[in-house]
């Protein structure tokens, strides 16, 4: 299998088959990272377009300072932040959902997986931005080292945010997991 970096080099020489392969590799992962953080699908498509093109065009991308994936997510993250700043922090589509009310059901229902996962989606949508970022980056498959590079923070700070994120989600999901 061709590495991301090998495909990147071939795309820059005009090889569109390499672009198609690179696109297929990141279409769902990167879009999955972007979509929850942006209000509309069109915004996510625009940022996806800008991010991939900017990564290919940037003269700063060198792979001794990070993998292609790291660069792509770093640029994508910056584009998301720029768009959020220009449009106001706003709310993602999920965050517009009202918080789920704890059902007055018994323990068996609380443990129903579908409710738990829906509750998780709502809790994630309500995460503050720094914690939401680590959730989505981790969910996109980035390692801790890659996440630290993308966010531009020390590994210790990243681990601290991960712990905070887990604690917030755990508290939010307690009604669905408590005794």
């Amino acid at each position, binding site marked *: 299998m061709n590495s991301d970096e090998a495909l990147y080099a071939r795309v820059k020489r005009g090889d569109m088959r390499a672009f198609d392969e690179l*696109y297929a590799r990141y*279409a769902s992962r990167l879009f999955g990272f972007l979509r929850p953080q942006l209000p509309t699908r069109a915004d996510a498509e625009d940022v996806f377009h800008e991010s991939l093109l900017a990564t290919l065009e940037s003269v700063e991308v060198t792979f001794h300072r990070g993998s292609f994936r790291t660069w792509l997510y770093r640029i994508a993250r910056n584009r998301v932040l720029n768009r959020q700043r220009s449009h106001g922090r706003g709310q993602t589509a999920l965050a517009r959902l009202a918080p789920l009310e704890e059902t007055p059901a018994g323990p068996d229902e609380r443990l129903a997986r579908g409710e738990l996962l829906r509750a998780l989606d709502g809790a994630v949508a309500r995460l503050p931005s720094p914690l939401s970022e680590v959730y989505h980056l981790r969910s996109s498959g980035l390692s801790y080292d890659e996440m630290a590079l993308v966010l531009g923070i020390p590994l210790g700070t990243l681990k601290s945010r991960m*712990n905070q994120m887990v604690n917030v*989600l755990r508290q939010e999901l307690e009604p669905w997991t408590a005794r």
Partner: protein
Amino acid sequence: MDCTLIQGALIGYHFATLSDDDRGDVETHLVACTACLRTYLAFKAHVDRDGSGAPSGEVPGETARLRLRGAVEARFRPTPARVLGRWFATPVPLYQGVAVAAAVVLAFVLGPAVARAIHPAPPAHALERVDSARSAAESLTIY
């Protein structure tokens, strides 16, 4: 650990923030409890986008994909200028650069001498004999 505690720990287990002891407790329970294992697997599939796309399976639309592809193709299509620029931008080992420069200098310095050796100019006195012979011939012409 009972199931309710395990359910609460699944997030920390998935994101690897549990202590070693707690992780071990979760794993021991998951091996023994199929219900909690199914819950964890569903949770993991829901959260983990690596290779599985957004939770709803979303990807950019076909129009967006074609627009991006067109932009990339236009930006990186090989043109003579880009090919030449890449050639000049290709780093060359120092010894190769010195060898090429030396070859160019030698070509300029030795080139004329080599050309003369290959195609020597006729000797000057040969031209004089032709001229002398012509004068003699003309002098013998009876008009």
